[in-house]
């Protein structure tokens, strides 16, 4: 540290924040506009998922019927025995792994390693697609067991309603992410991000930052899953 932390002086991190926010032109130095916009979108989306989860908690607490037992409902019947949370453990593992491939894609992107970056983006998309597929499989098991948005065999009707709504909303996010990743794969492989070729829809010039921005979204969707997992499967 260049500045010595003598008593009475604020820590350098603090003075850095103050000087950024009191400066002219840009508040987030060197961040452009794309990353701040994605962070802000994520903040807004956090409120959406936060409201969903709070609504779920309120519904669970105010309903008069007993809540179904998660470890029984979400158990897979394999090898002649009920293994609780097996499917969901695999799904979670896959989604978290996709965050790893995404992070590597960003790294290779900034190193201008087009091929490796593209393949990692494709791997991320594939893992995401597998996650959505397994989610569809889980939904089909639950539906076969008789879970409906308006009723289920074990207790409070709100179980099915909140489960389908919130995992569905999250699954939609993953699906949108997979589509965006496939689109980004094409852009990366074609070299759009190197030559600044304008996008077909928005007309914005390609930049390597785009991979990182998409990565922010993808990590956020993963993080949301951790909360959904905790609230639906472990509570």
């Amino acid at each position, binding site marked *: 540290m260049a500045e010595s932390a003598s008593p009475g002086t604020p820590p350098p991190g603090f003075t850095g924040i103050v000087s950024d*926010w*009191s*400066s*002219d*032109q*840009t*508040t*987030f*130095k060197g*961040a*452009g*506009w794309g990353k*701040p*916009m994605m962070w*802000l*979108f994520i*903040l*807004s*989306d956090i*409120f*959406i998922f*936060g*409201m*969903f989860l709070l*609504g779920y908690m*309120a*519904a669970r607490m*105010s*309903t*008069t*019927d007993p809540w179904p037992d998660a470890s029984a409902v979400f158990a897979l019947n394999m090898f002649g025995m009920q293994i609780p949370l097996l499917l969901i453990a695999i799904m979670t593992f896959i989604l978290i792994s996709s965050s790893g491939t995404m992070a590597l894609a960003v790294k290779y992107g900034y190193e201008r390693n087009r091929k490796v970056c593209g393949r990692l983006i494709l791997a991320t998309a594939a893992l995401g697609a597998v996650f959505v597929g397994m989610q569809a499989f889980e939904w089909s098991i639950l539906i076969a067991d008789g879970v409906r*948005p*308006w009723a289920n065999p074990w207790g*409070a*009707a*709100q179980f*099915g*309603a*909140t489960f389908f*709504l919130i995992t569905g*909303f999250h699954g939609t996010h993953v699906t949108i992410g997979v589509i965006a990743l496939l689109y980004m794969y094409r852009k990366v492989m074609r070299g759009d991000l190197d030559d600044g070729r304008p996008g077909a*829809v*928005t*007309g*914005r*010039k390609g930049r390597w930052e785009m991979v990182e921005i998409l990565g922010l979204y993808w990590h956020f969707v993963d993080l949301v899953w951790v909360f959904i997992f905790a609230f639906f499967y472990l509570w």
Partner: protein
Amino acid sequence: MAELGHDATSYAPPREQPEMELPHSHSFWTTYVFSQDAKTIAIQYSVTAISVGLLALLLSILIRLQLGFPNTFSLIDPSTYLQYVTMHGMIMVVYLLTALFLGGFGNYFIPLMIGARDMAFPWLNMLSFWFYFVSVLILVASFFVPGGPTGAGWTLYPPQLISEGTPGIHGGVILMMVSLGVFIAGFTMGGLNYVVTILQYRTRGMTLMRMPLTIWGIFMATLLALLAFPALLVAALMVLLDHLAGTSFFMPAMFSMGEQLPHEGGSPLLFQHLFWFFGHPEVYIVALPAFGVVSDILATHARRNIFGYRMMVWALIAIGGLSFVVWAHHMYVSGMNPYFGFLFATTTLIIAVPTAIKVYNWVLTLWHGNIRLEIPMLFAIGFIFTFINGGMTGLFLGNVTVDVPLADTYFVVGHFHMVMALAPVMTIFAAIYHWYPKITGRMLHEGMGKIHFWVTFIGAYAIFLPMHYLGLAGVPRRYYAYGESSPFIGESVVTLNAFITVAAVLVAAAQLMFIYNLIRSRKHGKEAGPNPWNANTLEWQTEHTPPTHGNFGKELPVVYRWPYDYGVPGAKYDFIPQNVPPEEVEMIDEGVRRT
């Protein structure tokens, strides 16, 4: 030696951002329809918002004719009455005020006032307008579906919202929810742009603490909207599922029309919490831009710097933060835990502190000012009146024990129309009269403007002040007819209701004259010149009036001072625009220059 400006500096920092990527238009369609220029988008937003606002005004006149002369006009029946009340409220709050302040004023003024060429992501900005446009179409379409629009009140409380017997439960509710969803998606696209543009695209020298208060107000309001609309979106989705998929998020077990409904175990209170978690910040989404605009107009037309600029900024931030912890003061009589009432009454009274600071500062800005009673100024002063009035009655309703007898009476109607309808609408008029010369290059007709102001201002008091009396007399709101013979409704109530209706019709007529003025002055107004009010902010310093695509010429302006250098002692002119360097400020004595 007089202090020239607020932290004035001759140092112009080097440019940090690269030049913006501006999408240039090549055809009629991309210039006027699918335009990516924030100014065109702003005008599209404003015209759409004002048009749908006129529809809501018409609805309110139909409501008033029924209330004032219940046996004379038979234009509407009880169902349509409820539907018109609902649509009037929803259109005015969301589709007019939110869209006009943020989509309209935000788009026009953010790039111009902070010295940017456009929004950060113009394409998304364009998409934002088209989502808004579609949401308005969907909303208006609900008038034409079987059963008509929903009639559950703009607060849309379930279980009434989707129970048999409420008008418009078939198509109307669905269209309302879908329309809100589309609106929120569209608004989010615009809102992301407004915030990021303000944070990342200010010109050289434009620090956050040199931004005009208009921009501060829009900035805070957009942040609130980005965090508050999610609650409404979630509530709308859940209502849709309750209605279409038979879920029971908000629907308890209940009997309706002699049979038990399939719903069970839902919580109507949950909806109210979600709705007001959106609904209370929504009040400030509308109010904060109004605060900002009024501050700028008062300072410009009083030729005096805004009193306590920093305090004004911090008050905006404080109000923004506190607005998320006061929502349940709308729910004192909802049946929630009474201890919440204590908590939320306390936070409600705390939020009055920064609000009062702002009011004092506006009044102190006028103190010893060189006040010019031009039309924007008249409306801005009108805003101070109506806002203080509405704020005062807010103290009554914010306290649980006073609120309980007043809840759901005309006192509430009078209160929120004073504070949330009149105050922002006065600001919108002030802003239009103030900035119309920049947007079109011509002044609005002054005589018509004066008539418009006085009819609107006095008429608005004639409408809403008696409502407080009606409320204290116990007249409940949302009733189609009261019946003259009722022992609870006195003769004076009937007379007052008729009086209010007459005033409302007059005020509405004045608005038509205003619309005529807007259209007429577009071609026949007096030439305005680039800076008719001698204002300091950057939008008045553009090369062209109206500003062209890209806003500024080859070079972006450099900012040397805050926007409130009016009547600086020693300076030759009573205003020093933000982009005038200290060494170029003309002084009375040519020999005296600031070093």
